[in-house]
């Protein structure tokens, strides 16, 4: 009798734990889904580059939410390091590049990552990134959370 009660308790615990786990996963999915509605990323593409060299990814972020959001971290398995970068003008006809810590996207506005401006820098590519290949980049926002986007490799903007 005791064995049966113990068995029932163990089974009940397993059911409760597994359903808790399920609920957590459900919450995770709903957060992701919300994120996609709040932040939209479109027109993503990146430049081709050889293994060990660097590529740049460009896209448009649209913040549909009622609050400003901040892109503070980027990650990709395509490269050894992934950073937010900006190309800037020095003196006449001279251009340089520097890393930036974060990018603020105001509520109901768009932010363009485009050639000659802001870009996600894929530093030290793990393998060749030829034309028509693709990969994923994860963007981390303070409010909306993480968003993983698919990026196509091509020579120029469409």
């Amino acid at each position: 009798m005791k064995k049966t009660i113990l068995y029932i308790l163990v089974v009940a615990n397993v059911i409760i734990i597994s359903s808790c786990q399920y609920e957590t996963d459900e919450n995770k999915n709903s957060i992701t889904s919300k994120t996609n509605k709040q932040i939209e990323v479109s027109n993503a593409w990146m430049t081709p580059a050889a293994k060990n060299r660097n590529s740049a990814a460009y896209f448009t972020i649209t913040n549909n939410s009622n609050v400003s959001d901040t892109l503070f971290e980027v990650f990709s398995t395509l490269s050894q390091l992934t950073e937010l970068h900006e190309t800037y003008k020095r003196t006449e006809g001279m251009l340089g590049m520097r890393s930036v810590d974060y990018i603020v996207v105001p509520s109901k506005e768009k932010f363009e990552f485009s050639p000659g401006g802001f870009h996600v820098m894929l530093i030290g590519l793990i393998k060749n990134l030829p034309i028509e290949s693709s990969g994923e980049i994860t963007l981390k926002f303070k409010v909306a959370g993480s968003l993983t986007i698919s990026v196509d490799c091509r020579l120029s903007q469409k």
Partner: protein
Amino acid sequence: MKNKTVTFPLLLLLLLLSFCKAELEELDDFNSKYYSLLNQDSTVVEFPTLLEGNVGVVGYIFTNCPDICPLTTNNMRLIQKQLSEENIKGVKFVSISFDTDTDKPSVLKDFAEVRNLDLTNWEFLTGKEQTIKELMKQVGVVAFVGDSTVFDDGRKSYYFVHTDRIQLIDKNGILRKNYIGSKIKIEEIIADIKTLTED
């Protein structure tokens, strides 16, 4: 009165058209010094001798550049494609790297291959540090190391601050025009090339 109304705009139009076909100035003679360089196949070549009586479209790059230099290179590809479509011959393309530490011939070859570039009339060049320094001074391109990124193992990926430039050199090795490499207007340089190839 009616004649005058038509004549004036017509004259103005002719005047504007004559300006459009303005002669390309001779800006600098690149024949005063020859530079021994290596191309993407490790073959020794001499600049500007390698142009061999062709019009030269010359860009200045470093392969670790992810943003501006790929734009410049892609613009050169578009120029090459347009010339091919219009069957305009007698033009050579040259991309010279100012990053002598990283851009060895094999690196330049990889840079071209991953972009499917047509190298039949296009060479990627590198050279000894001193040679490249002198060459950059002659062609008026400034390049120096700016920011860098440090990998976990201590390696550095450094980025040049540099002049964003494509140059047009005539059949005699004379510099005829400077363009902003990443923002060049393809129609403009095509028109200039036509002027020089027809000379």
